[in-house]
């Protein structure tokens, strides 16, 4: 407890804490939709595909700022989602292979560009790879301000378009039938996912950001059947994981924030899988034990009655 107050009194740590919590919140909210739309691994692909976009944005501008990267990564992410859709529609490849192909080729291209930048004369390149593999400790006030703006934007759009997003998550055919612009909404959702991913890359890195999209959403699904409650819970789990990750990594030396945050999210996930009401493993065991007991009892009663009838 002591080091919580110590952490909160350090202004630098306060920024990092806020940044990680906001990251968890916004990726939790977006992740709920992608989980329901069975697109959990699309987030992973988008995160990897963002790399060449970020590198090209850096090569063109020479600036290391989250805004510029967001544009580059957004364009790369859009090309990647288009590519996945195109591959699955125009060949016999299934979605998983399409995801894998896009993920690895984009990431490979990104690494080529990254080494290109390192060997070329782009003066200010130091730390670009740190940025990509996650270093929450390097976040400064201005990054957190950008991240807060992004989170507010994401959450606002999700609230405003809640009804539309809900419908395309559960029944896109019906949504199309009543005249919603489904393709446009799907693209918008994808764009929001790209934004959440890019905002999170700085804190947890390319490889692990997908965990922040998936784990809180799956955990939340275990506790409720209502979409709005699920989104709120998922955001909460995400934010709590961010806080827990920052706290643990600040109190133990040489603990990287990103992976610890991911493990915190995994912890919430395991707790939910075990103890979630009705769907959780413990609840299921409990239920099946109760049903079994009742069945045995009924059998016994029936046997008694049969015996009674035979005697009478």
């Amino acid at each position: 407890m002591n080091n919580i107050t110590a952490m909160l009194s350090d202004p630098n740590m306060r920024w990092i804490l806020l940044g990680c919590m906001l990251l968890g919140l916004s990726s939790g909210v977006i992740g709920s939709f992608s989980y329901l739309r069975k697109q959990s691994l699309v987030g992973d692909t988008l995160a990897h595909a963002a790399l060449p976009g970020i590198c090209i944005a850096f090569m063109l501008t020479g600036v290391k700022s989250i805004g510029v990267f967001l544009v580059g990564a957004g364009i790369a992410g859009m090309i990647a989602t288009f590519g996945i859709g195109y591959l699955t529609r125009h060949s016999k490849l299934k979605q998983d292979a399409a995801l894998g192909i896009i993920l690895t080729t984009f990431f490979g291209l990104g690494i080529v560009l990254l080494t290109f930048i390192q060997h070329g004369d782009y003066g200010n390149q130091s730390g670009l790879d740190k940025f990509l593999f996650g270093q929450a400790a390097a976040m400064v006030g201005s990054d957190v301000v950008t991240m807060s703006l992004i989170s507010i934007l994401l959450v606002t759009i999700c609230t405003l378009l809640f009804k539309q997003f809900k419908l395309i998550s559960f029944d896109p055919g019906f949504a199309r039938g009543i005249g919603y612009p489904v393709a446009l909404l799907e693209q918008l959702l994808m764009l929001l996912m790209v934004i959440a991913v890019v905002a999170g890359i700085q804190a947890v890195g390319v490889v692990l950001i997908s965990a922040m999209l998936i784990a809180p959403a799956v955990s939340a699904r275990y506790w409720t059947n209502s979409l709005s409650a699920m989104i709120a819970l998922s955001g909460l789990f995400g934010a709590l994981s961010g806080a827990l990750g920052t706290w643990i990594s600040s109190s133990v030396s040489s603990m990287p924030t990103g992976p610890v945050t991911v493990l915190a999210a995994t912890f919430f996930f395991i707790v939910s899988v075990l103890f979630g009401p009705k769907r959780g493993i413990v609840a299921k065991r409990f239920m099946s034990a109760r049903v079994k007991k009742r069945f045995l009892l009924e059998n016994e009663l029936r046997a008694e009655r049969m015996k009674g009838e035979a005697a009478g």
Partner: protein
Amino acid sequence: MSDFWILLTGSLVAACCGIVGVFLVLRKMAMIGDAISHSVMPGIVIAFLISGSRDSMLMMFAALVFGLITVLLIGLFQRSGIQSDASIGVVFTALFAIGVILVSLFARQVHLDQDAILYGEIAFVHWNLWEIGGMSLGPKAVWLLGVTLLVISLIIGLFYKQFKICSFDPALAAAIGIPVAFFHYLLMGLVSMATVSSFESVGAILVVGMLIVPASTAYLLTEKLGTMIALSIAAGIVSTFIGYSASIWLDASIAGCIVCAAGLLFLAAFLFSPTQGLVVRKLRMRSLAVSETR
């Protein structure tokens, strides 16, 4: 000489991954390959901490164990009602996170860093030689990959028919008494082996690329399993050669260039495959339309 060793290593990686990748693509498990290649990382670090060297049998064993743990956990979560891709995502990120934490906690003992794990060090393959009694027998990585390739081709060759039926019709396989689950885990074990022996020379990302991309290229070119395996290996080796030359020309990451080359080959197959290619199908459609109007 270094060129030769790098190309040989790359080609061996392409062959190992190309064979098992075919089965991953056919069984719609491409992303499980991705998951395994990330989640063997804690196994590698733990084995490194115990044995203190990078090329021990222990490392292979630990990676195998973690590969199988990954598959088991994914299956467990799937059976308890979580969508398959979400369970893949949760499992591999958690294990990878553990790996990264282990690396940073024991950074001084472990001469592994995140960059090496993600990109690999194929350029330094020929530095790490295997010597017996002062006689150099070539790079260790080549030996490791050679043994892996031998094991993979032996097992796939011996159980070719079983693997084939399991990939195309698991229900039939189960009905005629093939232990489907056993072959599933055997395949996953082979994927983990291919991953870990390719790992230190080419890195996690290239492994995934070599598992999925050449196999998908071959998938678009043929409808026979044997041909598909041969084409997959060939596509992998060709992309190794193209990628390596490109990396020298561009002075960029070798692993990255090889994956890009594999991606380009895939794009070529996607567009110009004689049976499935986009361009070919468009042309056929047009000629049909012309003959209709006549």
